[in-house]
């Protein structure tokens, strides 16, 4: 793979919890290559360390072992931006003010960043809502703001942590299509965490199936299907079934370990 953008080698994470310092292994020996421009899905049972892995890639947490290498040094510029499940918008900033946060703290001149923010607001179809506050928006619209805000730093990689999990089924469906469109339009690399098999099949270029905690890469499935996809397609159904099989063991293991 000569289009590799990110390389993870033997990455582990052990959380130590609270006062007791109890050691909780969250990730064990993750090996993963991420190609430039791909839509990579991280799929795994709840608690298997998906968020942990994403935070390590984002540089928000340090790995306990192993290493992480971006194969495109860009003058020290941060190459990732995160979209959180709970939106994490600044309640005291309007849509536009949220979107410009990144460029603002990086001291991009006002004129430049405002033009860019307007373009992004358009991209995520929030025209006319620029001056609303987050609490005046629906969940779906908030997530569009979060996406525009993440794109405003022009990162190589967008990290999504179950971005649609808090939304109702209708909105989720619409936003899944939107994400696929924006991925195609921007050519960015998406690393996308979900625990929904359907979402993985609808969106994923490659699907990384993780084991129960401590998370490891169990299997990587290539989804070579044209978009837009539909869950009723025969090939899609086959992949769904395969994923279901892979995950069922892991969910069972999670439940046993929690007992």
């Amino acid at each position, binding site marked *: 793979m000569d289009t590799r953008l990110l390389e993870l080698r033997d990455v582990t994470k052990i959380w130590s919890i609270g006062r007791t310092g109890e050691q909780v292994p969250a990730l064990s020996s993750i090996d993963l290559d991420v190609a430039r421009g791909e839509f990579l899905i991280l799929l795994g049972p709840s608690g298997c360390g998906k968020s942990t892995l994403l935070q390590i890639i*984002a540089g*928000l947490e340090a790995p306990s072992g192993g290493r992480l290498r971006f194969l495109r040094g860009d003058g020290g510029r*941060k190459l*990732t*931006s*995160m979209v*959180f499940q*709970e939106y*994490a918008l*600044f*309640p*005291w*900033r309007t849509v536009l003010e949220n979107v410009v*946060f*990144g460029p*603002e*703290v*990086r001291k991009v001149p006002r004129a430049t960043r405002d033009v860019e923010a307007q373009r992004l607001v358009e991209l995520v179809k929030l025209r006319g809502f620029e001056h609303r*506050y*987050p*609490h005046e928006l629906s969940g779906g619209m908030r997530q569009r703001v979060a996406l525009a*805000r*993440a794109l405003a*730093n022009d990162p190589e990689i967008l990290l999504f942590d179950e971005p649609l999990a808090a939304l109702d089924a209708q909105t989720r469906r619409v936003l899944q299509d939107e994400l696929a469109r924006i991925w195609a339009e921007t050519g960015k690399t998406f690393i996308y965490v979900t625990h929904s098999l359907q979402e993985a099949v609808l969106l994923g270029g490659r699907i990384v199936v993780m084991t129960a905690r401590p998370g490891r890469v169990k299997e990587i499935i290539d989804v070579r299907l044209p978009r837009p996809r539909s869950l009723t397609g025969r090939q899609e159904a086959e992949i769904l079934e395969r994923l279901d099989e892979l995950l069922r063991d892991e969910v069972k293991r999670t439940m046993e370990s929690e007992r």
Partner: protein
Amino acid sequence: MTRSTLRKVGSALFILVVWQVLVQTGNLNELFLPAPLSVLGAIWTMTLSGKLPWAILVSLNRVVQGFVYGALVGIVLGLLAGAIRWVEDVLDPWVAAVYPIPKSALFPLFMLWFGLGDPSKIVTITVGVLFLVLVNTVTGVKSINPLLLKAAVDLGASRFQVFLKVILPGALPNIFTGLRLGAGMALILVFITEIEATKAGLGFLLWESFQLLETKDVFAGVVMFGVLGVASTWFLQWLERVSCPWARR
């Protein structure tokens, strides 16, 4: 006017009229309860003579200075203590020790240290406001969703930028709670500190009138304290609306 406003205005007018009538029919002694119109008269006279405006000005000077110093120090220390663990640890015993003390009890000490003039009064008010603002600011910082801090760092904010652009605005609603409580405290303390060691101020005017048994002047002072209380509340509400438009309720 809505029904509710009518009831409120009606209630106020009814009591005032009954009160006025009771005094005029000789059922109430003006030494204890001067009629509303007498109080208005006293306010009018003292306004014309300049006595009341001067008293208000002197007190306002003490209140505003004490309030502003206390608010500034309280906000800065509160933000730091809320955001930085070691600052909180260093401040904690002092807050725990001084917070429960009625700040008026510190006034004699401050007179010993800072003399009988304005400084000891201003310091008393400063301390009273400071702790209320400090404690509420810390609460505000702790109430900020940690995910917002994470998002800010992820978007490239430095520690200082996180402080300025996330922690400060995030704590602002609670800071205003502290300021409102602090304003009330400032008025209480200016009255108490003006009973002693001064020849000017609204508290002094009120207390002196009491000693001369000029009850309507005492009432005039009480009413003016009420006006100051309402005015400070309105001002802070306006300031909060302007600076926290997202929190419009």
